């Protein structure tokens, strides 16, 4: 992009500046620290100039928005055309309580739904299962059968609003319940739009909500790819997630590398099923974290798009440009929130959200200030939603596409992250691929290492966290916290018992048996799961069939 002669003279000028102006300043005013690190621990230079991006080729590396390699964005007009979807992750207690929260959020301008399920649901247990002791409704809403799903979306126009569901091991079952819920309301499945997270690889790597061993887990994922590509053209059958990898303590580069490696692994499994890449790749979507380091995060999003487009086009030979697009949801970093001085979290969330918007996100969840203490209160979640609306309508950052392109610093960071990603790709390859690397604990060890380094930086005051290791106060917390229905558990269990009593149990038995046969064979399990949920088989019963057929996975324990 730069003239070689000019770069040469710039290099000389730079050396001169270092010897004169800079040296003089450093002599009089030494810098505050010996090295300046990103949140991920990568050193940042004092100054970036064209010399740091000398090899940048505009057309090859950046291009135009909506065109390959999509570094500048997946749409030609980006947020001038359509704002990102404001999608707040929400769920607690019973389906009734969460339904009321969805209506509250929609009333205040939310534009997409996002369901948080409780721990038992995430592990495929019914609320009254002994494994679920003490966990009902704590981290999300309990959905044990179609009856809960019907209440959860009661009065919500599911043919107009898209719904994202954070569910992994039981993703196919919960998706089937959503489809069946809409079907009962007369909405055919091809009209449904939304996302199931369904990213089992990052569960093994970071979030740990796996149930079955890797191979049968991947089979269920590919079953949803295949089913979705045929019957639900508007549905994202996976949200390949870096969010949880980052929350577990990874660096930005690790988040990006591991997530993209997972994505490429899903593509390989889809191809191995005999699907054409352009049949399913356009419905693969992504989910990233937006952490504290403003520019590093923006660079991460830009690098993500470029790498994915290249890999899909060059490595997998995808022909449909929609297969090249890395579309993503972002959530601000939960792990950056502090329990101390929770109001400060509003500010952290604001710049993290800003980074996501400047990075070209398609949808966004902004954390509430109280999330290091509890699930969000109405008061806190409204401020978090308003934060997005303020950025969208008042900050002016949406007025032009990818405004940070061409920044020597941001482009250099984008290139640096891309290099680090390919370094990791080579390491993963050398271990035999993603699943062998999981089984060897490679990702888990890399993440634990980064998490520990970060904690030590805070403990030794190399890294300042306001309110935690500096500017500490002893004030009690004054914000109101969420209170849940104390009768919720009883209500939920009573409903579950009623479902089991009133349904046609013979039909339930038959559909579960048919599912068992399908699971043992090689049929796509989705139609069988749909039959089970239509008959009001519970989540625990359906997942129980899979548990019996597939067995359960135990991970290597790594500190």
């Amino acid at each position, binding site marked *: 992009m730069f003239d070689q002669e000019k770069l040469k003279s710039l290099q000389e000028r730079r050396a001169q500046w270092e010897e004169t102006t800079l040296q003089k300043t450093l002599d009089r005013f030494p810098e505050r620290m010996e090295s300046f690190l990103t949140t991920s621990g990568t050193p940042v230079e004092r100054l970036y100039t064209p010399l740091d991006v000398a090899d940048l080729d505009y057309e090859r590396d950046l291009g135009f928005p909506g065109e390959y390699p999509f570094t500048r964005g997946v749409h030609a007009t980006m947020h001038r055309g359509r704002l990102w979807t404001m999608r707040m992750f929400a769920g607690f207690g019973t389906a009734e309580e969460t339904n009321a929260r969805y209506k509250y959020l929609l009333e205040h301008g939310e534009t997409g739904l996002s369901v948080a399920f409780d721990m038992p649901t995430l592990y495929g*247990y019914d609320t009254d299962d002994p494994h679920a*002791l*003490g*966990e009902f409704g704590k*981290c999300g809403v309990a959905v044990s059968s179609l009856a809960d799903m019907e209440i959860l979306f009661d009065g919500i126009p599911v043919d107009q609003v898209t719904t994202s569901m954070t569910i992994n091991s039981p993703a196919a079952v919960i998706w089937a319940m959503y489809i069946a819920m809409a079907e009962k309301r007369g909405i055919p499945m091809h009209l449904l739009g939304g996302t199931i997270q369904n990213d089992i690889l990052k569960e093994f790597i970071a979030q740990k909500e796996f149930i079955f061993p890797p191979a049968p887990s991947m089979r269920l994922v590919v079953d949803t790819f295949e089913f979705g590509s045929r019957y639900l053209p508007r549905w994202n059958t996976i949200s390949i997630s870096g969010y949880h990898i980052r929350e577990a303590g990874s660096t930005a580069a690790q988040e990006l590398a591991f997530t993209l490696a997972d994505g490429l692994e899903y593509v390989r499994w889809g191809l191995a099923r005999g699907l054409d890449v352009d049949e399913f790749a356009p419905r693969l979507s992504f989910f990233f974290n937006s952490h504290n380091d403003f520019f590093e995060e923006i660079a991460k999003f830009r690098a993500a798009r470029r790498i994915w487009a290249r890999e899909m086009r060059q490595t997998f030979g995808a022909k449909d440009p929609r297969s090249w697009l890395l579309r993503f949801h972002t959530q601000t970093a939960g792990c950056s929130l502090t329990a101390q001085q929770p109001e400060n979290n509003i500010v952290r969330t604001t710049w993290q959200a800003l980074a996501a918007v400047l990075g070209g996100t398609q949808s966004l969840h902004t954390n509430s200030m109280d999330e*290091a203490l509890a699930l969000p209160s109405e008061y806190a979640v409204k401020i978090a939603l308003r934060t997005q609306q303020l950025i969208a309508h008042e900050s002016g950052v949406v007025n032009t596409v990818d405004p940070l392109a061409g920044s020597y610093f941001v482009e250099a960071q984008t290139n640096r992250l891309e290099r680090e990603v390919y370094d990791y790709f080579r390491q993963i390859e050398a271990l035999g691929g993603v699943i062998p690397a999981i089984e060897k604990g490679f990702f888990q060890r890399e993440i634990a290492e980064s998490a520990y380094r970060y904690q030590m930086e805070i403990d030794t005051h190399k890294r300042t966290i306001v309110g935690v290791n500096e500017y500490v106060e002893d004030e009690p917390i004054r914000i109101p916290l969420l209170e849940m229905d104390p009768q919720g558990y009883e209500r939920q269990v009573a409903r579950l018992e009623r479902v089991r009593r009133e349904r046609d149990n013979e039909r339930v038995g038959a559909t579960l048996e048919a599912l068992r046969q399908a699971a043992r064979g090689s049929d796509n399990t989705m139609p069988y799961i749909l039959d089970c949920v239509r008959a009001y088989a519970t989540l625990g019963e359906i997942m129980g069939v899979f548990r019996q057929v597939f067995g359960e996975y135990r991970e290597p324990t790594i*500190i």
Partner: protein
Amino acid sequence: MSDKKIRVLIAKPGLDGHDRGAKVIARALRDAGMEVIYTGIRQTPEMIAEAALQEDVDVVGMSILSGAHMALFPKVMDLLRQNGLDDVLVVAGGIIPDEDVPALRQMGIQGIFGPGTPTDQIVNFIREKVR
């Protein structure tokens, strides 16, 4: 305090898979010279009490972020007592609201460490209490 290394069991009760904190603490205690046994995730109260007994530990540290602590911690405490482990120091960390702290102390959990606690504070607490 004797020269014997302090033995600590770090445990993750319940379904919650958020193991970042447990692992960081396990490593910090190890770096501080303690013997650390980490159970891994998804441990039932029975598994934790059994491991504490088998491993003959001085300390049990439990980490939980799902909010199920008020259901699971009392069970662990009962089972430790039944196994004759009354003298084991029990500490806990994770997302534990202030209002639950008195009840947890009452049942014998001596140290409760919330988000943002420096690791050396936990190291020092254990060193002081284990003699």
